[in-house]
């Protein structure tokens, strides 16, 4: 069976800097793949080419065994790719429902935005994801980090994403909220989603991921199953940029 996502020999440069250099990576259904590396290693840049935020210079993206063109966030969405950004890409001045449906508003027969129906749908999905979520009428700037994160996650879940990209989903969260996100990742995994997870927290990654891929200076150091490596192995991959498994 073909992998859910295959990025083949992908490269992108900004000015003279080769941010991602000939990187290949794959993701299977029901699998969580963690991307690790220093700041500036190219993790976020790699993933932004999949989410349509950047356009790659060269390389190919295959989804379900078919080659696809992803030139914009809209193309990514059309391929059931949803992204939860580190910076929580929410419009602070709008309420939860408007953010959840941003770019894909429900409309009535006359083509007008149907706020009541969107609010009803938002209540439904929030009851499932975060039952404590009550502030539906307020702008999301009034919400806590965890509540904002659940709006971002609800967006991915509601639109039946098959491929989920999470860029430091727990960076802004407290302990309890982090546990909630971890639980949700397990739940989505069971439903057969493929998840790319970006984080700096090696221990967290060992717990959440099936495989970890390490990048350094825009290149792929290696991708290993978590049960095959120790935390020290991963750290040395991050710091030295060498794969001890490959050397052995």
């Amino acid at each position, binding site marked *: 069976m073909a992998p859910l996502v295959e990025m083949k020999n992908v490269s992108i440069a900004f000015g003279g800097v080769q941010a991602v250099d000939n990187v290949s990576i794959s993701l299977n259904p029901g699998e969580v793949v963690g991307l690790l590396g220093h700041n500036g290693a190219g993790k976020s840049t790699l993933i932004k080419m999949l*989410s349509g*935020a950047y356009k790659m210079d060269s390389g190919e993206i295959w989804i379900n065994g078919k080659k696809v063109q992803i030139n*914009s*966030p*809209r193309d990514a*969405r059309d391929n059931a790719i949803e*992204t939860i*950004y580190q*910076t929580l*890409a*929410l*419009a*602070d*001045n*709008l309420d939860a429902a*408007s*953010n959840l449906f*941003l*770019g*894909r*508003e429900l*409309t009535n027969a006359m*083509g*007008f*935005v149907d*706020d*009541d*129906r969107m*609010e*009803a749908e938002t209540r439904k999905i929030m009851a499932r994801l975060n039952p404590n979520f*009550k502030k539906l009428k307020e*702008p999301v*700037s*009034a919400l806590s980090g965890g509540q904002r994160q659940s709006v971002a996650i609800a967006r991915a879940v509601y639109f039946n994403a098959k491929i989920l990209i999470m860029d430091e989903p727990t960076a802004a969260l407290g302990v309890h909220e982090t546990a909630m996100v971890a639980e949700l990742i397990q739940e989505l995994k069971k439903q057969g989603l493929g998840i790319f997870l970006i984080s700096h927290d090696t221990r967290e990654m060992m717990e959440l991921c099936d495989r970890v891929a390490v990048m350094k200076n825009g290149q792929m150091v290696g991708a290993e199953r978590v049960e095959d490596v120790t935390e020290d192995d991963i750290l040395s991959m991050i710091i030295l940029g060498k794969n001890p498994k490959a050397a052995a």
Partner: protein
Amino acid sequence: MSDQTKIPPKRSFVQTLELDMRLLGMIAAFIIVAVAFNILTGGRFLTPRNIFNLTIQTASVGIMATGMVFVIVTRHIDLSVGAILAACSALMAMTQVRWLPEFLEIGHWAIPWIAIMVGVALGALIGAFNGWLIGYQGIPAFIVTLGGFLIWRNVGWYQTAGQTIGPLDQTFMTFGGINGTLGGPLSWALGLAAIAFVLFAIFKSRHTKATHGFSVKPMWAELTIAGIAVAAIAGFIGVLTNYAVPERVVARDPSRYGCDVAEGCNAVYGLPISVLLLIGIAAVMTVIARRTRFGRYIFATGGNPDAAELSGINTRMLTVKIFALMGALCAIAAVVASARLANHSNDLGTLDELRVIAAAVIGGTALSGGIGTIYGAILGALIMQSLQSGMAMVGVDAPLQNIVVGAVLVFAVFIDIQYRKRVGAK
């Protein structure tokens, strides 16, 4: 569902009505200004005649202010609206006075409409060009429209060779105010239609919310809001239909006012067409802001441009559309402004960019983006105009008038910022 059956926490009167505090503040400010001037002028400020004049003086700036809300909400600015107004006015004047009469007889029914279409097309085109420079070429809106401020008025000047062009077409001039009013019966018919629509909208919304199982306001709150809306509409029409046409004006053309002779003819002005135009544009712009994707994207982009782009919104094209809309509104404002003066002169709309921006900002539009309302901008325009004509009536010296208006602008924004800090909003 369980949370909705709980007893809601105790809420204040205003909270229960779900009214916008900022709107209440602006209305209060407006009432204070109006009452103060009424006392200072010995009752001349709040007469049907002066209120009628205030509304027609506000129309042109108010029309542009609705567009400026969208521009400022997306964190841009448009300094060229007065200049675009002049350019469009020049083209419309030349079209109806110089060019079309060569093919059609003077007074032909199509002349004003062709002129308006040409003008609106020019306004939209200039605006779209501005938007393209800003959205696709990345030139800051401040610079593009500062350039436009110098360019477009002078393009108009070239077109007319600096001459005042007039008199404008008779039908065209009905958009100016005093030359085009609906009279008593038609004003009341429209007022009643508006009341019926408001009542329908309030209870339809209540019904929809109930269908979705949302909590709704208590019935008395709903009825209070409906009552205020009905009283406001009826009061407004009542005042305007109390402004009688002077007998010497009727005497010029009694048939226009439905009389055979001037004596005993109780004709009233009623709702001016220019004000009707402003109300219609405000309604359409409010629907755009609240109920269309275009409007939703404008506010999302203003709140977080990156989030909007990552959500698949084409923010560059959005910028072009917003500025094209702004340009088209400048052209409509040009119709009203030139029609009011019965001819086009090159200094038409001078300093309007500042009045329009001030109206939007006094009306609660935040320059940091993402926040603003159409009704606020129109109220802002009305407050500015009231201050200006009120001071003129009282006989305040010209330099002092500008000093007061400037101070009010800064003070209004100060209050707004304090209010937002207090309630913890952005």
